């Protein structure tokens, strides 16, 4: 058994305080500069923030961690397409924060972070409360860039739902699909890269088609895309041909897929050449940027996203503020739930290392995403990442999509594992 050890870091890094780190994972006696217990505040209780909060406590139970999240319940974006497609109820993708407190001692405050003072190291909340921190982790997800598609603003999203943040919008799109006549047309507009959940729009088309196939078989789905290729493309197209022949039309950017204007009264969208498409249900997924608090706190650059040291996720614009998840510019990692969780763990290690005066081990990151082509037909994409001179990069010859030529059993296994992936990623945040 001697060849297996979890103590490689101590040996490799030759940290002087190694014996003090010991079994408790935290150097005894190391205190924050303030003289009190170290304080970490995490803004945003999604896959990035919740996972990070939990893993900080897992590595260093001596650190106080406060998670600020405006919603009392977490509704996952992953699997929200199954609600839109009528396979699951929204209650099945809704989770509580209780266990973060009970099991991991994370102080969860349901409030909205409105201001960050990176000099004074404080966070102001909507309730008027102010929190001080030694380290701040910002994981606010995405904010939409309203009116980038002309006339598509928050009000318009009540008529043409985006359903790209799970919750009422998910249910609105579901209701519209239920109310649509057989033989109707649905438009999904897919944004240009980068955006949250690259395979999401195409999985959504699949699960809407699955619903139509059973209940409204004369209906059609048109995807208007602002790009010429997309995630898991050959796998999706193969799935569409197999399960939903002639039901889904994909219009690439080159073929006129870029939507530049919407008209909610006329129920149409217009592309960049002036051509209009009418439909009964229109799902507009607008372009996004880093979450509102990241923008307000000056953590985003001109791209709209937050530049970070990709080893530690510390902002390159503000010291002691780390940005993870969809808001961060994380090299080759996609904006996905799994990637956010993976970044949360790397960030947890970086924060614990810095607070404890330890060397940070070499980071390791993974992304794994499943998509449903049908309820019993799953596909996946995976990647293992390392830190390089150019930032986070995928290991060549590893990862990739599901194989193209496999039987139904394989696809079915991946659908079963998709549910397992869901259960585990949620458990990794809270349990």
């Amino acid at each position, binding site marked *: 058994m001697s060849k297996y050890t979890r103590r490689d870091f101590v040996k490799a890094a030759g940290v002087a305080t190694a014996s003090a780190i*010991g079994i408790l994972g935290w150097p*005894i006696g190391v205190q924050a500069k303030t003289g009190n217990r170290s304080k970490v505040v995490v803004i945003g209780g999604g896959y990035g923030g919740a996972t990070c909060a939990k893993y900080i406590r897992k590595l260093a*139970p001596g650190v106080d961690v406060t998670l600020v999240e405006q919603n009392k319940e977490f509704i996952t974006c992953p699997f929200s397409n199954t609600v839109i497609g009528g396979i699951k109820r929204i209650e099945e993708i809704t989770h509580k924060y209780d266990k973060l407190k009970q099991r991991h001692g994370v102080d969860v405050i349901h409030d909205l972070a409105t201001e960050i003072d990176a000099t004074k190291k404080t966070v102001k909340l909507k309730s008027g409360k102010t929190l001080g921190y030694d380290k701040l982790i910002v994981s606010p997800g995405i904010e939409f860039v309203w009116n980038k598609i002309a006339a598509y603003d928050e009000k318009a999203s009540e008529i043409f739902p985006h359903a790209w943040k799970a919750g009422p919008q998910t249910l609105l799109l579901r209701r519209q699909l239920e109310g649509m006549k057989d033989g109707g047309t649905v438009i999904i507009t897919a944004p240009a890269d980068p955006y949250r959940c690259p395979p999401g729009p195409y999985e959504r088309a699949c699960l809407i088609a699955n619903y139509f196939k059973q209940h409204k078989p004369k209906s059609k789905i048109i995807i208007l895309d602002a790009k010429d290729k997309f995630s898991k493309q050959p796998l999706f197209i193969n799935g569409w041909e197999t399960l939903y022949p002639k039901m889904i039309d994909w219009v690439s950017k080159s073929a006129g897929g870029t939507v530049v204007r919407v008209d909610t009264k006329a129920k149409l969208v217009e592309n960049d050449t002036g051509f209009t498409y009418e439909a009964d249900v229109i799902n507009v997924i607008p372009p996004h940027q880093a979450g509102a608090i990241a923008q307000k706190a000056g953590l985003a650059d001109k791209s709209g996203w937050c530049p970070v040291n990709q080893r530690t996720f510390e902002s390159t614009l503000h010291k002691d503020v780390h940005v993870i998840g969809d808001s961060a510019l994380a090299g080759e990692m996609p904006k996905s739930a799994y990637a956010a969780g993976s970044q949360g763990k790397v960030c947890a290690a970086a924060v614990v290392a810095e607070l404890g005066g330890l060397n940070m081990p070499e980071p390791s990151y993974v992304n794994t995403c499943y998509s449903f082509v049908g309820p019993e037909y799953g596909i996946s994409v995976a990647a293992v990442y390392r830190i390089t001179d150019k930032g986070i990069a995928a290991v060549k010859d590893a990862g990739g999509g599901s194989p193209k030529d496999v039987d139904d059993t394989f696809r079915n296994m991946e659908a079963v594992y998709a549910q397992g*992936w869901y259960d585990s990623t949620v458990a990794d945040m809270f349990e």
Partner: protein
Amino acid sequence: MKSCNLNKRLRSCLIGTACAVLLPVIAQADELSRAAMLSYTCAGCHGTNGISPGSIPSIYCKTADTIEKALKEYRDGTRFSTVMGRHVKGYTDDEIQLIAGFFGTYCNEKIGIKK
């Protein structure tokens, strides 16, 4: 098993001073290590500490030898997998050993379950 004994000794030595500084919410914390960093990437699918709540197989309480052998077989394609083969190709032999060691020793040390 040497490290286990060392752990016990350390625990009893430190417990007096530790209580003042640490909240014992979790019985035992993870050590900040390369092995933890690598193994944390598995937890997204296999569950925290390798304890899976759903259809993806758990990996806790398997021996390190079993895990190492399985991972190498996935990588070489001699064992069937849907996605594991694609993952394991991203790790070196040394890294596979660290991951196997992390989960392989988790059983006794971390969650008090006897192999």
